[in-house]
């Protein structure tokens, strides 16, 4: 009974990380690329915007494959939080 519940929760976590985590991480990473790629602004904009969709798809397919959902959420969270903090710092003038 307990193992069935654990499996169910794990399945739910897998679906949640694929459906919610992947797009958030992809969009945040794309925005981070636009802001911080060492290319000219228009080129960085093109690369950043056009990398969101493939990144989203790859994350959705690969995140549920990770053995531990904790690692999947950690990876997803870092891909979302790091660019967002960097963007906030850039907006506040702390980063170039």
């Amino acid at each position, binding site marked *: 009974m307990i193992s069935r519940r654990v499996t169910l929760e794990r399945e739910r976590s*897998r*679906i949640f990380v*694929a459906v919610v985590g992947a797009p958030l991480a992809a*969009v945040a990473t*794309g*925005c981070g690329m*636009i*802001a911080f790629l060492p290319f000219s602004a*228009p*080129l960085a*904009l*093109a*690369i*950043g*915007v*056009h990398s*969101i*969709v*493939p990144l*989203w*798809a*790859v994350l*959705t*397919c690969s995140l*549920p*494959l990770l053995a531990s959902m904790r690692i999947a959420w950690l990876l997803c969270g870092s891909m979302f939080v790091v660019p*967002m903090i960097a*963007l906030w710092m850039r*907006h506040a003038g702390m980063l170039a």
Partner: protein
Amino acid sequence: MRLGARAYQTEWSLHAWIGVVCSVLAFVSFFCGVFALFRSELTIWQDPALHRQLGATEQRLSYEALLARVREQRTLPTGARVAFTRYEASHWVAVLIHDPATQRDTELWIEPQTGRVREGYSRLADELYEMHFVYQLPFGSEIAGVAAMAFFIASLTGILIHLKDLRRALWRFRPQLRLRFSSSDAHKVLGVFGLPFALMYAWTGTLLGLLTVLSGIVTTLVLPGDVSPGDASGSIGSEAELVRPMAASAPLDAWIERARTAVPERLVQLVVLDGWAQHGSILGVYFTGSSLVDSPFVEIDAETGALIRIASGAESPLDRANRVMFDLHYATYGGLLLKVLYAVLTYGTCAVIVTGNLIWLERRDPARRRAANRFLERTTIAVPGGLALASAGYFALNRLLPESLAQRAHWEFGLFLMIWAVAAIAAYCPRVLARHAAGGLCCAASVLLFAVLLLELLQRRVPSSLSPTHAELSLWIVDGLLLALAIGSAALGRRSLRHARSSAVEAAPILSTNTRTST
């Protein structure tokens, strides 16, 4: 290469669930995508007045005269956007008036040679085009974008789960086997064969559908206060210079000539007057572009006639990338044969979507014991079958409704929706066997399409020469599309009805044996 057992199971579940959840929406988008591919041909086909093409379309038009004609017919609201579109296959000019206050659009067609005005005959081409990205629903474009993304992920997971037998999946098709296996074979063969195209449709479709949302997010997070990604190329004129009202007697033709001088050797395709009788009005002159490269346009101050900017539409890398995405999606980089190939692959993708749902049902619940699976089965018939029948009905109504009918275009679309709704109700009716419903809808669609083609053959004049005009070619292309749809619907309907009959014959002895055993 082979995935581990757990990874295979995860990818299989992801593929199946995403496929089932987005299947219906994806089917609507793909089915109407073929109509979107042939939109300009359908625009000519839908109105008999446009069937006859007079003279060369390259001739210079007087946009001043066209605007005067529009103003005789309509009082242009302040701030209105008036767009004049020319089609290669017609000497008529389409005029679209958008009222920003009410957000309403009015379409007129003007014959420049005679000044004849035609209004609201049909919106068949536009409505089917808009249904490709579910524009009739609120946030339709975004919903279609998410469905395209789901299809993209389903395609990728499909590759992963068939890595072990990708080559065999390309050719193994055993129609004589049970439905579960024959539909699985068809799903794999069509899926693997059209895989590069499906990935391309889905990727470009996601971007086109979600570009507005992504632009908004990027503007908010990365470029606060800067230009949006869509306007990244910038402009020459400043706001202060643009604040001037446009005079009603503005010499449009002289200004368009100035734009032609700025972009030589290209034909004017679209002229847009944005902000009628308002401060800051702009005249945009759009020229025929080179596919995958550019689509040049010129913006002119509608008060002074001064050039604001001359742009190729591909100034920034983002513009160029977006242009490539658009051209790949709408097959504008090739000729007619490429469009035909796209259409064939798109119908193949429709079959992949339907067979995917069939595999789900036959594998998980062949007797349809669960209500959710019965609902899925009926939905898989109601939406695709209903759409096929309603589209056939739309084409028939276009030819049968009287020309004098008020609000004719609205009647056509309203009846199209009504046919779809009635077909869906019939498909959901539990007394009707699912396969009978599927067969009946497909056969009815086929009969209607053959009737439309028969009408066309009776009314159509034989081409005057061996080199048909663009308009004649458009009509034959649409007829070819309808013929393909009619034959496909007939084949599907026949197969469904035959399956229903053979299932009933197989079930009869089993039922009688069961009855004997129980007694």
